[in-house]
């Protein structure tokens, strides 16, 4: 190979490049078990020159540019890894894609090398053995993750078991336009009263929409008098008791909702649009950073403010996962390790970049990174993560989620 480069013939350069391309294409790292027996340095050597097809939600151009510019730039410069960001609208489609690959017998040449995932999609992948597991301790930056935190070690109640690597933590918050509603209700009971007092000014996306589903869970927690009795495996008797109360509350609210509850938005995007147009007084999101982005993009007025509830809001962690049939596991691991680094976590926490809360313990990062985190001022429309964290609620196990979503459809959204 070196001999070809030494020939300074311009004609041969494309040929040499082609040869290089074919050699890197054949050096695939589909065999995850072999990688587990290697040291990190060996994995990095295997990863060099690889390409990672990362399937991720592509609807926010600042997140896209963080990944395509910052992350991809670092990967290319430091590891000669090409990051190919594949924008998707719903991770469930990709889970189905990987499942059909498995059914078609494609075990080492899958399309997907990395996927941004959590919750029900993670449960589906783990249950169908579609995830590459048991390697996360190999990543040097894994040491920055506090695996003793149950909100990180469990993804919607499903133990992570080394099958995915945390990327961001988020906590549900409400957004309101301070010019329209100066003093929004600060707890669930207050919100229910407010909705009744202001007919037509509130709605929520119909579950199983991700965001609508979590709103309904807040009502469910409220009906149960807190989440404590709901944690742990699914309990039919308890579900029947609490869900009856929940459906009663939601059905009672229905005539006071937008369009008298005759119809619900089907996505959070629709809710955001209703909120932007002032038709409803509140929007809400699992990732409050989205509020700041909507204001920056001019979609929402600058008077938008956000807040959590005194009785707490639900938080979760989102992750990146390597499918079992990824042909570029080594390079995908390097990507995950880079995403976890203090520097990369700090970069995406910056308000103008994304404003995403870190998945690593800030106290375990370097002094410069810690100083960087301390210097972040935050967007005025985005409630501070520390303020939200004062009243944080855990997510339920996935079986509860599907039961609540199905129950809503049968009892409320009928």
């Amino acid at each position, binding site marked *: 190979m070196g001999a070809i480069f030494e020939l300074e013939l311009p004609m041969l350069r494309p040929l040499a490049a082609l040869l290089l391309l074919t050699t890197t294409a054949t050096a695939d790292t589909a065999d995850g078990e072999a990688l587990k027996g290697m040291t990190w340095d060996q994995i990095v050597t295997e990863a060099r020159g690889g390409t990672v097809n990362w399937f991720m939600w*592509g609807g926010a151009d600042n997140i896209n540019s963080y990944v395509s510019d910052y992350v991809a730039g670092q990967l290319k410069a430091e590891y000669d890894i090409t990051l190919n960001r*594949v*924008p998707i609208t719903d991770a469930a489609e990709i889970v189905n*894609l990987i499942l059909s690959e498995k059914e078609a*017998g494609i075990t080492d040449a899958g*399309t997907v090398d990395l996927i941004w995932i959590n919750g029900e999609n993670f449960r589906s992948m783990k249950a169908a053995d579609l995830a590459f597991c048991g390697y996360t301790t190999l990543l040097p930056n894994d040491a920055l993750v506090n695996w003793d935190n149950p909100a990180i070690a469990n993804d919607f109640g499903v133990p992570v078991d080394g099958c995915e690597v945390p990327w961001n933590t988020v906590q549900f918050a409400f957004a309101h336009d301070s010019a329209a509603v100066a003093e929004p209700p600060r707890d669930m009971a207050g919100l229910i009263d407010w909705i009744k007092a202001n007919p037509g000014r509130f709605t929520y996306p119909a579950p199983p929409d991700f965001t609508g589903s979590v709103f309904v869970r807040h009502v469910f927690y409220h009906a149960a008098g807190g989440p404590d009795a709901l944690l742990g495996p699914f309990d039919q008797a308890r579900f029947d008791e609490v869900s009856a109360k929940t459906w009663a509350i939601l059905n009672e609210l229905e005539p006071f909702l937008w369009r008298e509850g005759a119809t619900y938005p089907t996505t959070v995007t629709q809710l955001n649009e209703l909120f932007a147009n*002032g038709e409803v007084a509140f929007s809400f999101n699992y990732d409050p950073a989205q509020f700041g982005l909507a204001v920056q*993009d*001019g*979609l929402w007025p600058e008077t938008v403010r956000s807040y959590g509830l005194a009785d707490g809001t639900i938080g979760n962690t989102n992750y990146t996962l390597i499918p079992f049939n990824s042909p570029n596991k080594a390079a995908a691991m390097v990507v995950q390790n880079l995403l976890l680094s203090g520097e990369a976590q700090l970069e995406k926490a910056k308000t103008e970049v994304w404003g995403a809360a870190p998945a690593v313990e800030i106290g375990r990062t370097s002094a410069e990174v810690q100083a960087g985190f301390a210097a972040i001022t935050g967007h005025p429309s985005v409630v501070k993560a520390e303020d939200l964290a004062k009243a944080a609620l855990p997510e339920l196990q996935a079986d509860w989620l599907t039961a609540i979503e199905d129950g809503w459809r049968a009892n409320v959204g009928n």
Partner: protein
Amino acid sequence: MRAETLRLLAGLVVALALVLPLVPLAIWSVAHGWRFPDLLPQAWSGKAWALALSQRGGVLESFGLTLGIALATTALAALVGVPAGRALGLYQFRGKRAVLLLLLAPAILPGIALVLGLHDLFLRLGLVGSAGGVILAHLVPVLPYMTLVMAAVFTGFDTRIEAQARSLGAGPWRTFLTVTLPVILPGLLTGALFAFLVSWSQYLLTLAIGGGRVQTLPLVLYSYAAAGRNDVAGAIALIYLLPGVVILLFTARRITGHSVGLELRP
């Protein structure tokens, strides 16, 4: 006089009906915040266009890819559709109706059923995730249009003009280029126009067979629309319209043009 005024009015109404839905798209693409009940955006911004036309936005790259796929699909469809259309248009043979029905099937079947079946097949063939696979997949809904248009063209085609050319010493290739092609060209262009636009507008098939890796313009457009970025979606939608309009302008006159071969028949 009055009939002419009416015709003009009807023309205007049709033109308005076609253009009006595009106006909000154009406004959105230069808006920075456009909320009810404002008639016009609060502020104007070139951000959406800057993003759509930048290297980073990936829209231009996607435009080129979509164009390449649609052109390749059209060329392949013509290669298959012209001879097939000739056979269907000129000759009677056993099972012709069955062939026609099979040809029409992909145009009649619900797209989603087609996609599910094709996806499984293409997975096994290792064609998923590549532009080549997407082109092959696009041929399925495209071919019926091309073949049926060409069959209609050849129904009115008089093979005696080819015989004349051959008797005057032209080889088969020259006969095709100088005699057959000029006669069928308006029809071929119509077929190609359909083929191009059908391929250009594929969403589901591209998503499934491309495995998300073949990011054609409809996919990019949808991902912004689904995320509520009406400004960027508006800009991409206008870019997306471009080829259709350009092709229509270039071919409109040729398609309606008359040609000699079709009038020879008594």
